């Protein structure tokens, strides 16, 4: 079920009312109900993959219990890792590996006829697998104790707002909330509604509007002049941000309605002053997951410069590969690693860890503006690889930007959406969601109203656009 569908607009209030009026009696009834509706939410897409989700949940739950009761912790830990990566590898990467191996053999002079799986990628598999892995890792590292109640654990993995596109939760953060009876909070629910409104605005009004032009430009890039190609790349940068952060806000908002607080996933990444800051603000739950469970176990930056460089490349390449079974994503990760490298070598990767840019000013200084523009440009170039069907097309696209650049671009009308969004994002940079917290209540109500009307007017009832991150 998509958040931006009529089905969800009926599903959410129904579940909300049943949850707080019928199933509020005990913690167990609350969690059983949440689990049931989460499974329903997932099965709406394809009920057959629900079995895979349940199997994956059961296995990680069992590994958690085994890790706590055995002397062979390392053995079970690695068994759990192999199990999770096998599921992910089989469903997500099998065809990619088969194709790449076949191509390699072909170039070496061997003719092969690889067997490809004709199977859809289970929605959200990368997300729920990582939930389960974080749980097992935390038990193995002694950070948490295994949970005995399977229902509680299953709610942690399958809670419907975060099931298909995150944020990637940590057991230490979400499980305590699952194990505690939720009591309705007016303030939390109102904040949840506001977040959902803002999320829908980003997804339905901004991202989906830009998506139409982005698809046209990227699919027929050879037809367009350089300025249009540049505009297409900028549109895609904004589209993917609004699409994914919009989804996250809807997920966070929906979770608040049920008394849960999920992890923050974005903190105004396009106002970053360098790539390192960008990665502290973009898809935070994934970056911190890789940092905690891959980068630090590999030695992080504490074992010398060259190991830090090696580890940085590993996490960026793995992060790219996590996004999809295509060389474009790996290349995208490589670009970010290369952009990160100078900062790491010059020890500037920890700059700007504190406040957001121009925290105490209305507008940024000239240097800050240049830094932001440079970072945004580099990120945008990398997005071209992310969006293109293959690396050759991406290079072709970038090459095309230089052709007849000083001409009027096509589709410039949608720049209005870009500027409106960037202005709103800039206004709330000191504090997330403050755009929806105008002091004057009449102004605030008017803004909510305008947002709601724009969402209805832009809501595409016919061709509902999926969220980009569903495919990962």
């Amino acid at each position, binding site marked *: 079920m998509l958040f931006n569908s009529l089905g969800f607009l009926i599903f959410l209030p129904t579940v909300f009312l049943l949850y707080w009026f019928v199933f509020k009696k005990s913690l167990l009834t609350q969690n059983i109900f949440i689990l049931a509706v989460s499974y329903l939410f997932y099965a709406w897409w394809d009920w057959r993959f629900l079995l895979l989700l349940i199997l994956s949940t059961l296995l990680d739950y069992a590994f958690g219990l085994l890790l706590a009761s055995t002397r062979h912790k390392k053995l079970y830990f690695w068994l759990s890792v192999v199990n999770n990566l096998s599921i992910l590898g089989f469903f997500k990467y099998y065809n990619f590996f088969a194709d790449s191996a076949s191509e390699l053999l072909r170039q070496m002079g061997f003719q092969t006829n690889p067997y490809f799986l004709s199977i859809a990628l289970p929605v959200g598999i990368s997300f729920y697998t990582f939930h389960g892995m974080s749980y097992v890792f935390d038990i193995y590292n002694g950070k948490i104790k295994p949970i005995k109640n399977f229902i509680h654990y299953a709610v942690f993995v399958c809670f419907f707002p975060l099931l298909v596109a995150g944020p990637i939760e940590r057991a230490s953060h979400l499980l305590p909330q699952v194990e505690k009876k939720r009591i*309705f909070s007016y303030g939390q629910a109102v904040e949840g509604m506001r977040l959902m409104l803002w999320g829908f605005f980003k997804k339905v009004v901004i991202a989906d*509007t830009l998506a139409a032009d982005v698809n046209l430009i990227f699919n*027929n890039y050879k037809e367009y002049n350089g300025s249009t190609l540049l505009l297409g790349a900028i549109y895609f940068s904004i589209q993917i941000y609004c699409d994914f952060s919009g989804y996250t806000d809807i997920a966070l908002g929906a979770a608040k309605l049920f008394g849960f607080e999920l992890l923050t996933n974005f903190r105004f990444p396009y106002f970053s002053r360098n790539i390192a800051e960008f990665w502290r603000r973009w898809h935070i739950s994934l970056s911190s997951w890789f940092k905690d469970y891959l980068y630090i176990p590999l030695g992080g930056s504490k074992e010398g410069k060259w190991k830090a460089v090696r580890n940085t490349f590993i996490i960026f390449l793995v992060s790219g590969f996590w996004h999809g079974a295509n060389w474009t994503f790996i290349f995208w990760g490589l670009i970010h690693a290369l952009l990160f490298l100078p900062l790491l070598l010059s020890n500037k990767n920890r700059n700007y860890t504190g406040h957001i840019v121009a925290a105490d000013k209305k507008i940024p200084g000239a240097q800050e503006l240049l830094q932001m523009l440079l970072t945004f440009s580099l990120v945008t170039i990398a997005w071209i690889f992310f969006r293109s069907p293959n690396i050759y097309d991406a290079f072709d696209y970038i090459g095309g930007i230089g052709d007849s650049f000083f001409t009027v671009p096509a589709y410039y009308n949608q720049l209005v959406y870009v500027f409106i969004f960037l202005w709103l994002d800039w206004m709330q940079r000191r504090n997330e969601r403050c755009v929806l917290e105008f002091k004057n209540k009449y102004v605030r109500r008017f803004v909510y109203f305008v947002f709601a009307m724009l969402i209805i007017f832009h809501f595409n*009832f016919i061709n509902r656009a999926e969220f980009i991150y569903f495919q990962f």
Partner: protein
Amino acid sequence: MKQFLFKTSLWIASVLLCFIVLLYPVNKEVFADKKAVYLENAHSKDFDLLILGSSRAEHSILPTLLDTTKNIFNMGEEGNGMPSNYIMLKLLTENYGLQIKTLLLEVDEFSFNGSTGFSRQFRDDNFYYHLNDPEIYDATKRYRGPVYASLLHIFPQAGGLLYNDFSQFLKAYPFVFKAYSQSLQDTYNKLVNVYAFSKGYVPLTDPAKVLPVQSKTRQHHILEADDVAYFDKLVRLCKKHNIKLYLYRMPILNCEHEDSQEFDQFIHNFCQQNEVLFFDYKCSYQNSNWFHDYTHATDTIARMVTKDLKSKISI
């Protein structure tokens, strides 16, 4: 909790109310670029020749070149599939009781591939105001979903908005006030006259400067049961109302890319059994300068096709 529910419900209700109030004056005239407007105006006129089909029909036949003394109209529209063709014909013949002497139906391998995205299959935007008809309502429900169909049934004003994009709505909205402050009928007639002049033909004059790369693999087109069923219904309707039926297929650039074996066989059998003529231009006029894109011919080809058809069909 009660306070939250009350305030939320009140807020949602007020937003929906504003939405309805804002849209209430919107009617079919606001989105008047559609031929549905002409359709409304066509009540009293019988057709000597009606052209139905997709965008390949809309950009292919010039009624004014066929015969200026007869009432000929090109009702082809982008995305029209078999369900739309049938419902349009049914609306004109059964609901409006119009006589149609001859029907020239544009068909090709794309017309029978509704669900695969080659055509939109059903142009519900032409029928928002006719959802009381059970067959039209059923088709809307089938292709757009029950929620959408029932919403439009109650509130057809939302239809134009849901189908069109927001900027189009903003551009069109002033018409609402203009129409009300002056005369709604004037605006309506003015827009209808545009189609009355062109008789529904929309020329594509500019050839594409650089055509997009066509798929390297040959596109295989299937025949979908739904579309075949609607085609059968259309044929039965023609027989019922004594409408002389002709079929034609427009040229496609690099026609060998489109594998239309199933369609070719089907149409061949159909024409033999029913003694219907099929004029096939699929691989004619293979000059890229005469094409707007791979599947749409420019005005140059449209004129050649129209002239050729003029010599072959009797109106």
